[in-house]
């Protein structure tokens, strides 16, 4: 099962990469830089997913005090930091050629940076607590708190006037040409599969560390 999941994810990522590099035409305005979107958007979706896992597992750990939820919560918090950091990095790489700046003081960018910092804090609290059980509890509390930022990140482009474009895919419809939508959808699925595999592997590793 594990080998199947890893193999399937690797295959999905390969197809996603192929579609992003060769299956998608260049954009009329952004040119070849549109290809960064095929990493940036899936990374952002994965960051939301990891944050949701860290929130759910954190809340369940605080309620039930079952170590298994802590293993999942730890993996979720680490991956939320990783994917939100990747979202920021790819956004900056795209921003320089398209916007002309690495960084803009924009609500979406700032709230994403806040999300990244909160998960860094979550991981530090765990490592620096004066006893391991307290560290687990405190980091679960920070994970619950940090998740409150996710809707703010997502809706910041709706609530505020921002440089960052609004959502291209929403309940109101899809504002993306099919030739861009397919690579984006495949990459989003591939990244979510990668997130699931990394979550499972990291939680397993955390449980092995916990058993020592």
């Amino acid at each position, binding site marked *: 099962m594990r080998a199947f999941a890893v193999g399937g994810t690797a295959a999905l990522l390969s197809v996603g990469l192929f579609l992003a590099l060769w299956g998608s035409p260049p954009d009329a305005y952004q040119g070849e830089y549109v290809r960064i979107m095929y990493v940036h958007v899936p990374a952002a979706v994965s960051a939301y997913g990891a944050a949701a896992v860290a929130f759910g597992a954190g809340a369940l750990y605080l309620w039930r005090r079952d170590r298994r939820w802590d293993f999942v919560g730890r993996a979720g918090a680490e991956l939320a930091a990783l994917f939100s950091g990747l979202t920021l990095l790819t956004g900056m790489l795209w921003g320089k050629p398209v916007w002309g700046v690495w960084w803009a003081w924009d609500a979406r960018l700032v709230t994403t940076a806040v999300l990244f*910092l*909160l998960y860094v*804090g979550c991981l*530090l*609290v765990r490592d620096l607590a004066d006893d391991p059980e307290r560290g687990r*509890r405190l980091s679960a509390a*920070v994970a619950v708190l940090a998740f409150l930022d996710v809707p703010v990140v997502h809706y910041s482009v709706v609530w505020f006037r921002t440089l960052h474009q609004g959502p291209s895919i929403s309940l109101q419809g899809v504002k993306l040409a099919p030739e861009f939508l397919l690579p984006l959808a495949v990459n989003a699925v591939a990244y979510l599969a990668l997130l699931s595999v990394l979550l499972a592997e990291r939680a397993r590793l955390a449980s092995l560390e916990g058993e020592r």
Partner: protein
Amino acid sequence: MKAWRRVAAVARKDLLLEWRGRDAVLPAGSFGFAVLLVLGLVSGGGGEAAPSALWVSVLLAAVLAAGRGADREGEEGTREVLLLYPGSREDLFWGRWLALCVVLLVLAAGLWCAQVLLFDAPTRGAGVLILAALLATAGLGAAGTLLAALVAHVRAGPLLMPLLFLPATVPVLLAGVRLSETAASGAPAGPWWGVLVVFDLLFLLVGPVLFELVVEG
């Protein structure tokens, strides 16, 4: 003992210690004043920089003030004693929150006066500013009370406090700056009252619940 009496007793204890020692208001206020000076110096001290300088100084002073109550209990070893008293630990949260709100209001008022003098900032729209300060204080107090309890048992807690507090309270900073600007110019406030109210509601609802879990022995 009824809940409100426990809340009042904790708040009274914190405020009495603060009144006698002044070890939160004076250092945090002086630090906030130093931040105002530095920001005034680098920005040229123009009136347009005044709202940003005020709210940044309030936020940074709040980081220090929020941590002080928890530090005091750690230094004097009274934290465990306080936790042993019967009744809900939520009351501890509300007592500390109340005391911290008073301290933050004093700090905000002092820093506002300093900002008016240093930046020659307009004093129009006092009603808007007072309401914004009250709402901001309620939210900052809740976030500060929760996070101070959270970092109390963490190595390098004083370093982690700003790392958690500043990102979490960015909405208050933004809303405070924008509302101060609109108070001075008379422009419409836009979504910023809503931002402050939602921030307050979130932290006042989540804060006491997480506080109970965080302070467990």
